[in-house]
């Protein structure tokens, strides 16, 4: 059997194309607003659309839940994703690889930069406690972790990277208002390019729930990690990137 490449959403029967959607319209709840909700659903490709719930939210807004069939087809062969370019290693394998290839501890510097105060991402990767059942990088015997915490200024980060002779700099960005995460990341990578001779910059890695993993060139960083990344993935990547770097 050849693999299916054209699919549709699944409600309770293959090929039924059923989806659910909820949204708010800035109009009072009445017959007109319900008609408007169905019109929106139709324009979004839901046909037939079933308005299963409508409720006034204050005098000026209405909330709707719509179930319906979408007429779109999804072509799996046209989907583009950033595939993991490195093998996943266990903590032991990571330690062994560092010992054998670097012959010293791998130094990782972590921070939240700009005004971002949300350390949850960087802490999940770095703290011993870790994330999703995996211990953080502090747990790895051959990795030295320096976590600068929240609201670190870019010059401070660069200075710390020099002082610690960091092999990799991990930056986490959660706040995305006005694209602060992109602005901050570009500022950070520019500062490192300025402060280090080319090809000597530490590995620059950013993570956060709202990054596009394929934007590395645009942001001037080596790797971008998204939602759900585990410490093991980051450690495996660091080993892959740093040891292949020292080879070349």
């Amino acid at each position, binding site marked *: 059997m050849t693999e299916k490449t054209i699919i549709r959403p699944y409600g309770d029967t293959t090929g039924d194309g059923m989806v659910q959607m909820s949204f708010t319209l800035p109009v009072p709840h009445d017959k007109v607003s319900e008609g408007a909700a169905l019109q929106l659903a139709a324009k979004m490709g839901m046909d037939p659309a079933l308005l299963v719930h409508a409720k006034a939210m*204050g005098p000026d807004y209405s909330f709707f839940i719509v179930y319906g069939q979408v007429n779109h087809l999804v072509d799996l062969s046209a989907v583009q994703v950033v595939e993991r370019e490195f093998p996943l290693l266990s903590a032991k394998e990571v330690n062994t690889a560092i010992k054998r290839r670097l012959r010293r501890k791998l130094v990782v510097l972590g921070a939240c930069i700009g*005004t*971002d105060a949300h350390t949850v991402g960087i802490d999940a990767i770095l703290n011993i406690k870790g994330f999703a059942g995996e211990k953080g990088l502090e747990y790895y015997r051959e990795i030295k972790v320096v976590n600068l915490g929240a609201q670190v200024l870019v010059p401070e980060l660069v200075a710390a990277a020099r002082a610690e002779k960091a092999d990799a700099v991990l930056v986490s960005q959660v706040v995305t208002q*006005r694209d*602060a995460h992109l602005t901050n990341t570009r500022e950070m990578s520019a500062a490192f390019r300025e402060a280090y001779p080319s090809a000597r910059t530490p590995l620059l890695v950013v993570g956060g729930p709202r990054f596009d993993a394929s934007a590395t060139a645009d942001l001037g960083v080596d790797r971008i990690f998204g939602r759900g990344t585990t410490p093991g993935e980051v450690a495996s990547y660091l080993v892959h990137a740093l040891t292949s770097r020292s080879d070349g």
Partner: protein
Amino acid sequence: VSTTRHPRKLALDPAVVRRARTLARQAGRPIVALARTHTTVSVERAVLRLAGVSGADPDGIALPVWDALLTGGHSDLTELAQKAATGGVEFRIPEGRDAARATRAASRQVGAGIRTIDRRRQERERMIRRIGDAPRTPWIYLIVATGDIYEDIPQAQAAAREGADVIAVIRSTGQSLLDYVPEGATREGYAGAYATQENFRLMRAALDDVSRELGRYVRLTNYASGLCMPEIATLAGLERLDMMLNDSMYGILFRDINPVRTFVDQRFSRQIHARAGIIINTGEDNYLTTADAVDEAHTVTVSQLLNEFFAKEAGLENWQLGLGHAFEINPEVPDSFRLELAHALLARQLFPDAPLKWMPPTKHMTGDVFRGYLLDGFFNLVGALTGQGILLVGMMTEAVVTPFLSDRDLALQNVRYVLDAAGKLHEDFHPAPNGFINRRANQVLGEAVDLLERITAEPGDTALLSAIADGTFGLMKRPADAGKGFDGVVEHAPGYVNPATDILEGGKPR
């Protein structure tokens, strides 16, 4: 909040509870001594604000400022501040009769500011009498966070109409590290609006309008934290804010602000809050967002005990202690709901007269909004079952987006359903004397006492500072001579006068 004492549901050993409080006092006392002998640039600026200065950021200290005012022929403090900012004023430390004159002038003007705070407090009490108060506890606490005060206002009013008893205006994330308070109404902020006197005034006026419309006084919350904590507390008192986030160690641990700076600023801001009748909210929920909510549950208890000590020492009363805690246990952990109940009941029973602040799940909100909605429902149920005073409404879109209008409406439906359906269930809820909940609560209390023993056994005169430097809290190491704002800490010189502290500690005039 409610002044009724909550019935005891846990079998806690009173001797262990007493021991925990004794240790917290032992850990806290040297810190208070430190705070009494130091001042900071922000405390001094707060004093000048009480005296009516606005729109400037001088490094002023009270006595030399009033000395310059009396001897330099300046028309008022603001003019002096403006001249000082351009370098046109020479300050000296007055002595003898000049010092006495400067002290009297300073006390008079600062006293006027404190009387304004007193009037604001009376105004609040009068409005609550005339308009009415929140209909029940827990008070429903909702957040607005557009970053634009003119967008925040209609959102806050809408939230009040939908049932919020307390509105918190989230602050721009950068503000904690600004060493000055911005001026005027602001429309630009990252993930929140700047705390400014004008923003405070605008929002309080808008909530006064909606309070009259709804027949219940809607409270306003902001953040007395970061490098300008004492000034922001002062502005909150002057503009009749009702609650302020004000944790004794948050800035140290999570913002890397110098520990001494924080404790000095803390004490002054809490004295202002005490005077202004403001309810403080402490930040214990933050520990559980970085550390594990089961393994580190006792750090919440320790922090609550320290916050209670520092608050009482600064003159706050039980009804003003919105001690924080949170529903952050991984829902995959077996019996997670029973553990949450045990922790929440422990806080309730340790602080029977305080309006505890109950914070919703954030760490285990995965983006699955449907599961998150259920988790928030269970969070609300713990709130109802354990008599929490202030309930921050959980959003199923936590960690996804800034909540949609519909998310907030759905979240409030969740709260209302649980409170209507099970709000009095606490009357029937009595955990078995030797059951899981009782055992767990006692275990956490025991671990809290152990940790306090370790803290007070640290070397040095200020064991708590050593403990903070060692990374005892949240694994973050914060030495007493490092961190942001350290250069703004000064030990009192002989003859140092702080007219505000003198009045606040003397207790007059009310």
